[in-house]
């Protein structure tokens, strides 16, 4: 099985380079040319013709337009006077009422929207932290200890990476309803802390960035094996851990089917489930609120991405998972 994943393996070294290299002072620069394993050889701009620069810029501009226009529309619509979200002009402002609209969103229906956002932060935060810790322990053990059955365990983890989680959702629902875990936050959190991809990334990273010599030295100093993991392994694996945390967080934040099935109580729902229930309420909730809610629900992840830029950029090259 491991030989089949050469695609991911061969990408991994580039990841460690970008992960371990940046000191705080160089962070900004690394952020601009992430994955820049090619070195600092300057691209010679004088060799490019004006025509080619023009064509490339126009095509790139079209792409940027495609990616930005829906979000632009959302921003514009959410800023229009309450109730006029869908009236003309489609892509331009009609006054600036964003503050008042967000205020209305946060107070309407007993402030349930804020509750949903906090639920999402709670589920994604707890799930991602615990999931990252468990994955890093397992990955570290697979990288640093020789024991019987090691390759079998790793093979099972890789197989799990290849089967999408959503396929386990219905069986999980059946299982949870059997044991009475419906409407229990654990039903969302427990499945989301399993991160086979996190184990895979931790193993690759621990093998490369936690030197055996340091582990040996700690043993000679009388540090226990588990202590070595917590005091040395965990610290040296930090860049990989942030990456795993980020991807777990995004995955849990974006999850819809699982919480939609196992949480019926609307005060326990995450924001994805809550907003879709508003959307599908057949007009019981004004669509204007849905538009404003959609805009606000994007912001937390956007902030997280901006803060942790250098980590997700490096993490993607290690073969990230949808």
């Amino acid at each position, binding site marked *: 099985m491991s*030989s089949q994943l*050469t*695609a*991911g393996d061969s990408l991994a070294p*580039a990841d460690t380079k970008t992960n371990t290299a940046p000191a705080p002072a160089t962070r900004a620069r690394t952020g*601009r*040319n992430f*994955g820049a394993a*090619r070195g600092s050889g300057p691209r*010679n701009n004088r060799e*490019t013709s004006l025509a080619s*620069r023009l064509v*490339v*810029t126009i095509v*790139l501009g079209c*792409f*940027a337009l495609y*990616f*930005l226009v*829906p979000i632009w*529309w959302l921003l514009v619509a959410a800023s229009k006077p309450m109730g006029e979200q869908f*009236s003309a002009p*489609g892509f331009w402002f009609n006054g600036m009422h964003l503050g008042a609209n967000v205020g209305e969103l946060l107070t309407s229906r007993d402030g349930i929207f804020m509750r949903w956002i906090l639920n999402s932060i709670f589920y994604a935060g707890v799930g991602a932290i615990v999931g990252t810790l*468990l994955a890093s*322990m*397992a990955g570290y*053990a697979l990288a640093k*200890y020789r*024991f019987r059955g*090691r390759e079998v365990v790793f093979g099972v983890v890789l197989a799990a990476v*290849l*089967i*999408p989680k*959503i*396929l*386990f959702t*219905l069986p*999980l629902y*059946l*299982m949870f309803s059997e044991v009475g875990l419906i409407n229990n936050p654990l039903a969302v959190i427990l499945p989301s802390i*399993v991160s086979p991809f996190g*184990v895979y990334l931790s193993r690759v990273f621990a093998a490369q960035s936690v030197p055996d010599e340091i582990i040996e030295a700690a043993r000679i100093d*009388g*540090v*226990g*094996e*588990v*202590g070595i993991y917590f005091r040395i392994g965990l610290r040296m694996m930090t860049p990989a851990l942030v990456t795993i945390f980020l991807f777990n967080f995004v995955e849990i934040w974006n999850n*819809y089917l699982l919480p939609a*099935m196992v949480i019926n109580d609307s005060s326990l729902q995450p924001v*994805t489930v809550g907003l*879709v229930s508003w*959307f599908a309420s057949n007009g019981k909730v004004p669509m204007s609120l849905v538009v404003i809610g*959609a805009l606000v*629900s994007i912001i937390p*992840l956007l902030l997280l991405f901006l803060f942790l830029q250098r980590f997700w*950029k490096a993490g*993607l090259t290690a*073969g990230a998972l*949808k």
Partner: protein
Amino acid sequence: MSVGTPTRSTIPKTRTSGRQARTAALLLAPFAVIFLGMYLAPLCFAVYRSLFVLKRDGLGLTAPTLVFDPFTNYLKAFTDPVFIESLGRVLLFGVVQVPVMLALATGLALLIDSRSARAKGFFRLTSFLPYAVPGVIAALMWSFLYSGTSSPINALLAPLGIEIPFLGQDMVLWSVANIVTWGWTGYNMIIIYAALQSIPGEILEAAKIDGASAWNIAWNIKIPMVRPALILTAVFSIIGTAQLYNEPKVLQSVSGGSIDSAFTPIMAAQAATAAQNYPYAAATSVILAVLVGILSITFFKITNRGSDA
């Protein structure tokens, strides 16, 4: 938690490896327990459930009973035209959407990587922005843009006499494809772009000195060298296609019937669950998991054989 550790020199080799195995087991245990509980247990439970059939008596006076009947549900799934149609629809979707998206992502990566590109950071960031938008939120957003009554896109096109029926019967699958493409092109682009960045500069320099055009370098050197990244993005896109659910599910309520409750296999399985037909839902889930597993492993095998040659 810490394990008693005398200095290494005093421990015989066999004891060391025994201790290593114990530590490894200790570190692996928490993940293993949750993994077994959340992956293996539900799968086993689904397989078990799928082997039973819900039997109601003719008059419906008593509660239905579960009867062991291992083949009925699977036979029903494979002869259920609705389920088969949903499989075919997702297959068609994948055959069209995945190549289009990866071609766009590769083109975008090559353009941003090219010497003629300006404002590379800006273009990378805007491409990746959709990834930060949760799938169902992206679908909500696009559903407003597609709306039959108030689509701002159609409002813009109206003076030209064009009206696109985004949610029409023939169009709706490709409207869904557009949402997925919008969300994931930038993500795939970043992976391919990072692979492009790791091509040694000397190779490109040498090709340039030999007089190769930018087009030639891209086609004959860069694309073959980022092959592992392309395989990776392809596998993940195929897996992603198999779990198509969020986008069609959100559009369903505004589609006016062109998206039914069994539009994709996962929607079909979910509909069976909602109808409390648990054994049948379990059987379709098992079939899906097995199909996806076979598909991704086959794709890995085929593409890896090619790279060995």
